């Protein structure tokens, strides 16, 4: 399909419970197209397979059935063009901020001087200058988050895949980070895919919001967010924003209720995250 950077067709994935040997279907016949340069959010009830989907797009997991194509090529393994920001950021605690951000540049074989220069540029971009030599344990949650983003961008990816990146942040920091990510998105012109539980966040940031069914997940609906761009906090008081939120709330609520009904039956496997 032209214009699609990701083309996901009829993907199914299940996990085997090591004890009982039962197989738990997590994603069932999911299809999705994602346009290059878009900002897309994925929402859905907890345990519906969002992280699993993201890992498959990143190349960390293979679908049991169906195909995932990235720029027309099947996704078989992780690749620097598609960078995942994991739920816990995955910063290396033994490296400083600079060391962490330099890592992807080092991995592609750049010389130390060049490495440093590029890394400093991205550190500045996320406003972490002055903290180059701090270790992750010395940073606040929001700063770790930004360091993770700087590292992902330093890899110069085409696609940034983010798994609930703001989950551990307070509301104000979260809003600031949302705006920063949007700024970065418009600056670097890449594709951003965001998993989130926050409807406001999904609507505010995205051009498109994908709602997933209760497990086994598939795309329930795909909602175009036709709000003006560039997004500023003012769009949150736009009447269209409220309408979209109302619609998405209802849609998501149905699925969450299904999940809660399911949960009364025994759950076969522990959650990954």
């Amino acid at each position, binding site marked *: 399909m032209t214009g699609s950077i990701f083309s996901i067709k009829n993907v199914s994935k299940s996990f085997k419970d090591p004890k009982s040997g039962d197989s738990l279907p997590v994603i069932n016949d999911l299809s999705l197209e994602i346009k290059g340069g878009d900002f897309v959010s994925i929402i859905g009830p907890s345990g519906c397979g969002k992280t699993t989907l993201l890992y498959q797009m*990143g190349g*960390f997991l293979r679908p049991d059935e169906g195909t995932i194509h990235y720029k027309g090529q099947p996704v078989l*393994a*992780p*690749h*620097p063009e*598609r*960078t*995942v920001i*994991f739920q*816990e950021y*995955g910063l*290396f*605690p*033994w*490296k*400083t901020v600079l060391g962490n951000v330099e*890592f*992807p540049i*080092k*991995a*592609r074989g750049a010389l130390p001087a060049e490495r440093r220069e590029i890394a400093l540029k991205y550190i500045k971009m996320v406003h972490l200058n002055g903290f180059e030599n701090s*270790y*992750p*344990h010395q940073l606040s949650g929001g700063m770790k988050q930004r360091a993770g983003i700087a590292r992902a961008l330093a*890899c110069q990816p085409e696609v940034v895949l983010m798994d609930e990146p703001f989950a551990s942040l307070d509301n104000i920091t979260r809003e600031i980070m949302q705006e920063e990510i949007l700024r970065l998105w418009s600056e670097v012109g890449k594709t951003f895919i965001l998993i989130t539980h926050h409807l406001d966040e999904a609507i505010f940031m995205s051009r498109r919001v994908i709602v997933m069914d209760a497990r086994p997940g598939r795309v329930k609906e795909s909602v175009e967010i036709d709000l003006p761009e560039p997004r500023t906090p003012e769009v949150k008081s736009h009447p269209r924003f409220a309408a979209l939120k109302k619609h998405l709330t209802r849609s998501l609520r149905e699925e969450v209720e299904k999940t809660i009904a399911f949960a009364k039956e025994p759950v076969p496997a522990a959650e990954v995250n």
Partner: protein
Amino acid sequence: MKILKKALPFFAVLLIWELLFRFGLLNEYLLPSPLSVAKAGLALAGSGELFLDLFASVKRVLAGFLAAAVFGLTLGTLSGYGRSLSDAIMPLCEFLRPIPPIAWIPIAILWFGLGDNPAYFIVFIGAFFPIFINSYWGIRESRLMHLNVARNFGASRFLVLTDVLLPGSLPRILHGLRIGLGLGWTSVISAELVGAQSGLGYMIQMNRVMLKTENIIAGMVTIGLAGLLMNYLMLLLEKRLLTWRKDTLRSAETAEA
């Protein structure tokens, strides 16, 4: 203040010991007073004898420890990284590991005669296993998320080793080195009890034959102090190399020697 707190138990033991002696509860040949031990120690130190023995033991422990560190780290890292190597050598290691270093002394004397060589060997045996096992598990228990991050960025196997696996397991590796050095030190003393003509182990054994209990205890105190110092230096090294872990662990407090 802190150092005072740490020295207090030492003084308490000395005090009780001295008091027991004063009340005539100790047999002088079995346990002389701390004062006569101190005197004996000073005399041995003054004549230089004590230092010759100390240096002989330290030389042996360092040589054996260094060899164990090189082998243990290399083998542990490689078998932590590559499944097939660990499958091949782990059972052998787990079979050899429970055989204590002292149990190797007879065969070591048979193989290497008396003197430095059997001691090097015994130290090697004592120090190797903690170093090997800890570096193996350090690498093995690296966090999958960090490996995934490295894979995502297209890092080579070599870069994964140098920048992810090794630094990530450094706490465990350093711990193994510290335990290894401690075990190496106890091993060298055991080896010298029977297989050497110098060293602190030999020295205390000779003094038993001559019934000089105060010299035996002075020797034991020296062994203890040297072990304490080595452990302290290793902890210092850990603290130096693991600044990134500071404040994140409760043990960081204890490591502050």
